[in-house]
């Protein structure tokens, strides 16, 4: 991980964008200021997680009067089932979702972007249409469906749809990117005897690494952050995800442990943050058009 970061930092920037010293100081100053703006609320949260409980809401400063990590311990065992379990559950669901989304959505996107077939535009419109329906109203019919399938209280309702490309967002995203890959590469592959499948697998996917990484990042983070799905489908606390655990942790009609909440929120961020750091390295230079006269 660290290796990845340092090597990315060490990689020489391309000539064209090489900046003069004053320019690069300006850029960095702006970026650092921007970062602070982005970070303040988060830093506040982290600091809240180590603050004495009664100080949390009475101060906007970032520096706690005393540091106290007990919130973490309290939060971790605050529920019957430890947060470790929730982390694991979330991880399983998120990783499966990443795989499902990347695989299934890229298949559909490839069809929409490259293959010719009757009714393509129609299906594309329908696909987009599915993006527009507020999920609150399909929730109950869907619940009934999964209930009849016997999937309620398992992770299946949260995972199986991803393997069936239920997330139109990613299909649409990939379509847009696939369309940026020169068609001549497909054609060259066709001449090399490739079936549509092989073109997809050997040409399309490797060349769309940046967007696949994007999809992976989003899938992971959104699933990690998802609350409503697990709320409806996971009843047994042993199967709760991290967000569900967090929310259960705060009960609005009884006392709540804000320190613990912030501690757990902070911990919750750690895996996604690292997932992000890791996968964003794949946002590499697009290379699709080198090796081509145009």
């Amino acid at each position, binding site marked *: 991980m660290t290796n990845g970061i340092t090597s990315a930092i060490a990689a020489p920037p391309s000539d064209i964008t090489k900046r003069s010293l004053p320019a690069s100081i300006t850029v960095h100053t702006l970026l650092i200021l921007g970062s602070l703006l982005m970070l303040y609320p988060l830093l506040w949260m982290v600091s809240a997680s180590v603050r004495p409980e*009664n100080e949390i*809401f*009475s101060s906007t400063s970032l520096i706690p009067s005393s540091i106290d990590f007990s919130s973490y311990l309290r939060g971790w065992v605050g529920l019957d089932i430890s947060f470790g379990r929730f982390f694991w559950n979330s991880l399983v669901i998120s990783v499966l979702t990443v795989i499902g989304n990347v695989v299934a959505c890229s298949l559909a996107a490839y069809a929409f972007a490259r293959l010719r077939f009757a009714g393509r535009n129609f299906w594309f419109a329908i696909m987009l249409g599915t993006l527009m329906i507020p999920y609150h109203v399909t929730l109950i019919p869907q619940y009934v469906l999964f209930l009849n399938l016997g999937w309620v209280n398992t992770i299946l309702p949260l995972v199986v749809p991803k393997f069936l490309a239920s997330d139109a967002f990613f299909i649409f995203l990939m379509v847009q990117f696939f369309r940026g890959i020169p068609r001549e590469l497909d054609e060259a592959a066709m001449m090399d005897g490739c079936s549509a499948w092989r073109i997809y697998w050997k040409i399309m996917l490797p060349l769309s690494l940046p967007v696949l990484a994007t999809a992976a990042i989003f899938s992971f983070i959104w699933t990690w952050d998802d609350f409503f799905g697990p*709320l409806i489908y996971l*009843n047994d606390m042993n199967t709760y995800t991290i967000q569900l655990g967090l929310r259960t942790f705060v009960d*609005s*009609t009884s*006392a709540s442990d804000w320190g613990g909440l912030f501690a757990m929120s902070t911990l919750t961020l750690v895996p996604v943050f690292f997932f992000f750091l890791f996968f964003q390295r794949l946002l590499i230079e697009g290379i699709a058009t080198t090796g081509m006269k145009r």
Partner: protein
Amino acid sequence: EDARLRLIWWGSQPRADRTNKVSDLYKSKNPGVSITGEFLGWGDYWPRLATQVAGKNAPDVIQMDYRYIVEYAGRGALAPLESYMPAKLNLDDFDKAQIEGGSVNGHLYGVSLGANSAATVLNTTAFQEAGIELPTQATTWEEFGKMAAELTKAGKRKGMFGMADGSGAEPLFENYLRQRGKALYTADGKIAFGVEEASEWFDMWNKFRESGACVPADIQALDKNDIETNTVSLGKSAAGYAHSNQFVAYQQMNKDKLALTNYMRVAKDSKGGHYRKPSMFFSVSSQSKVLDQAVDYVNFFVKNPDAATLLGVERGIPESAAMRDVVAGKLDDVGKIPLEYVAGLGDLAGKLPPPPPSGAGEGELTLRNIAEQVAFGQVTPADGGKQLVDEITRILARG
């Protein structure tokens, strides 16, 4: 394995711990029964429950709120329980009014797990600092308004006002109406107050606002109807409005010493605003395949002394007189305060109002909405009152 019971309730881990222990106890006495419990926070509880009910997958034993019992019972989601009484469900030593509170259209749908009452939370430290006496049971709104304004003016703490703005708080408004001989809703689900009361209500709060007795509108609007965002918890006011069973939690959040008192009197001699409210029920799902077992569990839950010991007053003061005695001796100082508060209401307490009709939830939002409009000066108290009555009438008509 002859029965598999599913339970669902909202609440925190301590509540879950107690509940689970009761379940374990029950299981040990009823071999062959398995029990699974689900619990969630209040906000998340209702969508999940609604989904499960709609999906015909409701748990057998459901924790119900006074607000929602009519919605669920009226729509056939809950099983009527009166036929089990008294043999299987023995509520003999329950307060009759509390049993009624769990009834809709003459059927019993919920067994009360505890009672509470609306209350004013006072930050006694803040009062002391400002050198102002705490209100007593006799204090009227007018007097309290003056005290609060003084406290604000004393300015001992930056940004702290005398009291929270309660104009949008339904329990407070209901209390006010009841003291004036009205109510929010009639038993048959009609509006039970008029434009006059509503307008005067808003007008009263406008005056408090002007005199600085209560917090400004934009600060009150931070209150999301929970403990954390209550102006007392946030240190914005020295007095706020809550329910007695929340007291322990309030105290936990606050460095200062808190106290409970009643809602103020409208006039020296007005009474009957408060009532002992079933804070929550256990209901049994009409979809349950193990109805008898579920009822038996509920009965055990409210009538078994061991269970009562395990549960304490975490869900409110037990309704069963016997159980109340079991738990009373085991409370600490802070825990005793709500108990004593409810016990000491005296003439301030009146009859339990009928369970709110469906649409009441919308009504509450409407009150809050119009109160805010008045508070932010968008609407005069007179118009606000009229709007409130119109709106609620409309909502009730729609059902």
